[in-house]
């Protein structure tokens, strides 16, 4: 759809900031929860709590996908991120013997520089985005755009080749992770000791 047609549609429907729909209210509330959980994730001093708050943030993003009518991606998010990535991160924390309680050195010395960079980036990005999309509305009605049927059709009609390339990438990552995390054989432990 051309941008002009989208703008015309937005001008005719034209809901305002002062009359938010139920979907918008739900989106903002879930978004606040997601953002709060993300902030706790990057600021907490308890490492395991950071992983658990990451679950809340990623689950909130899955709910946002549902509100944007992208159902399939929402469930993929729940399966992949909440199901496997967070568990992997927790395993990583345990295998590196992360302290269970508060660790005072969770943040490095340049956290104030990092805070400045993040605040400046957030301010500029939010300003640009709000200025650009002030009069743009998403039309969530009409045919559903993210159901499993639609996603499967487009994925296996138009995106088959990237999909197959991605499976090769996953295989390479699997083999690479196994090779990296494999313990060395006792045979080459001798020449490792000489180094």
């Amino acid at each position, binding site marked *: 759809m051309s941008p002009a047609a989208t703008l015309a549609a937005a001008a005719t429907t034209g809901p305002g900031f002062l009359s938010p729909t139920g979907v918008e209210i739900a989106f903002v509330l879930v978004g606040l929860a997601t953002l709060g959980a993300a902030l706790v994730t990057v600021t907490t001093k308890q490492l395991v709590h950071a992983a658990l708050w990451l679950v809340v943030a990623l689950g909130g*993003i899955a709910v946002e996908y549902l509100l944007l009518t992208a159902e399939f991606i929402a469930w993929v998010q729940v399966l*992949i991120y909440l199901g496997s990535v967070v568990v992997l991160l927790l395993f990583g924390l345990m295998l590196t013997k992360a302290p269970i309680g508060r660790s005072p050195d969770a943040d490095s010395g340049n956290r104030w520089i990092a805070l400045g960079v993040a605040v400046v980036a957030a301010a500029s990005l939010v300003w640009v985005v709000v200025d650009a999309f002030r009069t743009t509305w998403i039309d969530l009605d009409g045919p559903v755009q993210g159901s499993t049927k639609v996603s499967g059709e487009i994925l296996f009609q138009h995106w088959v080749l990237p999909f197959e390339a991605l499976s090769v990438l996953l295989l390479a990552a699997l083999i690479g992770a196994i090779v990296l995390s494999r313990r060395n054989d006792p045979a080459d432990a001798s020449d490792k000791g000489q180094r």
Partner: protein
Amino acid sequence: MHLAYPAVLAALLFCTGLYGVLARRNAILVLMSVELMLNAVNLNLVAFDVWLRDALHAGQALTLFTIAIAAAEIGIGLAIVLMVYRNRGTSDVDRLRDTAEGHEPAANNQSEVTA
């Protein structure tokens, strides 16, 4: 729905992840922040795909690909972190300064270098 809501949320989540990447010391917490940044980008992709009503649904397809690549990235990243931890006994990213210029690679003067 107003398009600014998902766009602003994605921008703020991205900057939260940016802060985490720059400020965290533990390598696994850095990986968590990278995941937050990737999720912010995914949210942007889905929102713009739904807004544009793309016939190919390129945004949603690319989101699925990003999720898969993020899974591969977290696997390789954790394998590297575990290997570094086994060799060095630490997973703090600011103690791994062997390739930095102008610093001695000895372990005992790292505290005043990073202070």
